[in-house]
């Protein structure tokens, strides 16, 4: 946590409510997100207990598994989930825009422009917390290798139709969620903690109820009191007033309410299934409402300028997976080969650098943090001296002197970047401090002034202007290109066996005994 964020947290402690960490919203928020609030069975992997899912905050679909140890009931749950989620994810597939992209022509080997489809919008899944994202990944993994009766008529225990497809989509959004700044799958706690600093630790911020209590405490209550109440307060039966955001349930709920209700269901008592569904809904509904409460809070923030650019990358990601599904490609493998893994890591690293830069440029409060860290500086122009570069064709290289209170980590020749009014980035380099005064850096502009002998109007700041230079690049590029998977060097295990058209991963073996 940077000092400026620590300070914001302390201000929140003193004020009794959360303080802003941002002045704009740094994540795309869909007009029609799909909210998914899952619950899982304690101690079991991939045995969902229930979920609320839907795009209409007033009418969530309740899915419940009255006995998670029963394979048929689990399958029924997954089939229902597929019915609730797939129409939503598929709903963005057909509205497309055309984009021009350079592709290598297979015959000539030249880069030629081609028109490709880009979906105009993309689905956005919202889950309550980081654990919810992990659960989506787990669900995806548990489903994508299943076989339906149509695919393999002979295999026992076929999965219901669409379940493997849902598994592939959940895997895709789960994988995409690891890319910094992406928006296909987001957790409400991550969204809220990005934009507000509470008066508690980052660990405690993982509790959605407590987090919301700090951001928007009920009237007459301090954030701290409301958060402590959300965490701990129990009713006369020992049940939490604010159930955990899942997917794990509260042990007291499991032991005192759920287990007896399941026993009644197992005994076949009339009304037992309805009672179980009501119990599960009672645990889910407060979290469902909390997620939408968070959506309201976030919508009140204006969207950052560069958010749409990042969302476009999500649309590319969605379009690419749509194409893979349509082309009948096999599900994502259990483990990535070396080249794919390296590509993903490198993509995430450059996404992180891009996100850091864009957030700072969109938001003076984020930029303040970078300025404090010595990665940017802002000041007033005190003097501009025209100068030309040496060489055959002298170009304008004006020297700009600033007055600043910031203390950037400058050394001679450090490259600097500044956004221009038209969205381009102007480069510059640090020359020296005027008269060894650390408050008066001199900067030589090196670009963004056009091709002429005189700089384009507006491209050189004038005395009295306030300018902000950053030491970091604004659109960082990725690392060197990686080889194709078929050319994986032996140092990294050689070409993966699947690369040569080997059969995709086999489904998980099913056993006659239902093991869970």
């Amino acid at each position, binding site marked *: *946590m940077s*000092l*400026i964020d*620590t*300070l*914001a*947290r*302390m201000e929140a*402690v*003193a004020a009794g409510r959360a303080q*802003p960490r941002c*002045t704009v919203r740094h994540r795309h928020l869909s007009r029609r997100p799909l909210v998914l609030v899952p619950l899982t*069975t*304690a*101690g*079991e*992997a*991939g045995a969902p207990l229930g979920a609320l899912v839907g795009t209409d905050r007033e009418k969530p679909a309740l899915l419940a598994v009255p006995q998670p140890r029963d394979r048929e009931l689990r399958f029924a749950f997954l089939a229902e989930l597929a019915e609730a989620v797939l129409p939503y994810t598929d709903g963005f597939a057909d509205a497309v825009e055309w984009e021009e992209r350079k592709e290598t022509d297979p015959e000539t080997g030249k880069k030629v422009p081609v028109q490709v489809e880009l979906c105009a919008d993309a689905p956005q899944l919202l889950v309550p917390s980081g654990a919810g994202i992990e659960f989506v990944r*787990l669900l995806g*993994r548990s489903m994508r290798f299943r076989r339906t009766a149509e695919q393999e008529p002979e295999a026992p225990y076929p999965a219901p139709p669409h379940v493997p497809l849902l598994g592939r989509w959940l895997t895709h959004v789960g994988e995409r969620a690891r890319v910094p700044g992406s928006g296909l799958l987001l957790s409400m706690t991550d969204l809220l903690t990005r934009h507000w600093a509470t*008066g*508690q*630790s980052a*660990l*405690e911020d993982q509790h959605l*109820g407590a987090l*919301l*209590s700090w951001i*928007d*405490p*009920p009237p007459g*209550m301090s954030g701290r009191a*409301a958060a402590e*109440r*959300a965490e*701990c307060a129990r009713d006369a039966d020992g049940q939490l007033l604010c159930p955990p955001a899942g997917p794990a*349930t*509260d*042990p007291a709920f*499991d*032991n005192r309410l759920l*287990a007896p209700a399941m026993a009644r269901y197992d005994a076949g008592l009339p009304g037992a299934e309805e009672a179980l569904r009501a119990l599960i809904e009672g645990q889910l509904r*407060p*979290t469902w*409402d*909390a997620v939408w*409460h968070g959506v*309201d*809070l976030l919508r*009140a*923030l*204006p969207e950052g300028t560069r958010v749409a650019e990042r969302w476009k990358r999500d649309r590319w990601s969605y379009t690419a997976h749509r194409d893979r599904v349509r082309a009948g490609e096999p599900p994502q493998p*259990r483990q990535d080969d070396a080249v794919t893994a390296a590509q993903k890591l490198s993509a995430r690293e450059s996404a992180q650098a891009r996100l850091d830069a864009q957030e700072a440029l969109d938001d003076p*409060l984020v930029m*303040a943090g970078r*300025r*404090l860290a010595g990665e940017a500086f802002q000041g007033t122009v005190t003097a501009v001296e025209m100068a030309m570069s040496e060489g055959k064709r002298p170009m304008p290289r004006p020297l700009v002197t600033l007055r600043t*209170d910031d203390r950037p980590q400058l050394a001679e020749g450090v490259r600097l970047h500044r956004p221009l009014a038209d969205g381009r980035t102007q480069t510059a380099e640090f020359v020296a401090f005027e008269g060894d005064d650390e408050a008066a850096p001199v900067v030589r502009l090196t670009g963004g002034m056009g091709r002429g002998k005189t700089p384009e109007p507006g491209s050189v700041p004038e005395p009295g202007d306030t300018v902000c230079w950053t030491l970091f690049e604004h659109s960082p590029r990725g690392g060197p290109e990686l080889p194709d998977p078929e050319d994986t060097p032996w140092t990294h295990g050689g070409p993966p066996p699947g690369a040569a058209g080997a059969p995709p991963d086999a489904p*998980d073996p099913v056993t006659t005994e239902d*093991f869970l």
Partner: protein
Amino acid sequence: MNVSRDGRPASAAPVAGRPAATPSLRRRLTELRGPGVRPRSLDARALAALAANPGCRRRALLDGAGIDKAALAQALGSPAAYGQSQFAIVRGHAFEARVTSDGGTELLRLLHERLPPGTPPPAPDEVATPDLSAAGPEGRTARTALALREATAAGGWALLRHPMLAVEVAGSPAYVEPDAVVVHPDGSWTVVEIKSFPMIDGAADAAKVGAAARQAAVYVLALEPVAGHVGAYTGREVTVRDRVLLVCPKDFSNLPTAAAVDVRKQLATTRRQLARLTRVEDIAGALPEGTTFDLRLGDDGKTATRPPEELAEAVEAVGAAYAPECLAACELAFHCRKRSREEGAVETLGRGVRGELGGLRTVAEVLAAAGPGAPEPPVAPGGPDDPAVVALRRAAALRAEALSRTVVPGPRAEEPGCH
């Protein structure tokens, strides 16, 4: 992992080579618990958690004295949000029973797969499974030590299920119970830890594996003195392997799979932290005369009749080192958090926060130092030239400047859903 600690004279306790608690200390600890209160068991998980926060004298004393922290927290009015779902317990037991049911054949097969290639596999009927039942934790510890000695001397494979080991915590013995220990024919021992979280495509939740590794490190630590004695007795070189076998369900089934986990790092950490734990004796000695954590349970044996203020005073008599990580590891954490927040300690916001704040200890001090025109504190830490104060002022100025430029819409004041 049921573990017990006992205040009875430990004449038979084979806490090999370690000083047993002195009678005066035992008497003092009994006083702290209150008359007639049985000492609380302490498991390896709690031990690992204790070792994770060695600066906490409060926890060292309460755990060392075997005080029921959950009941204490309840009586103080800040109950812990602990407990385990019965579904998880049933599942955990069923899985462990499945892994160890067939005389250990499956477990040894899994272990053999993780050994260097070329190691001869154990035949099912060659594996000794000694009976370890005995009365009381000391008896079981002695029985375990004997079984380990015999199995090592015999030079074959042996599987010890739920052996009991003693480990010294802050000057008094605690008993821990690994899921299993395997004796190899070469005289080395392997700790086996059976967990019910899944290993999916060969990978398990890193946090859970880390916790299991810390727990296993406690077992390895507890085995080492026993190994020393067995080695001296049998004349063989006896080693406790620092790679433990972690057995988990495979993917989405309850078929077992296993991985060898290197616990050298956890072992070094735990050893260092346990050595750093202030001795319970010293902490107890520094308490005001007559301090006790006795809850004075009523006739039902559950309700505390002692006034919470009195208890709180007793708890305050020994210092705590609260950090938010405690919430997941200590039953008393909510109480300590309340106190810590009331004092405005900066650690309530996270352990790392202190690093940048120099000598400033409370939120009020930090905000005062950050604010313009605040009265200059007379002493050097927190003074105007303190680099932490300079940075804070700069941060506050930058933050104020950025916020003044834009109007941040406040949260909507509507009836919230989950409060």
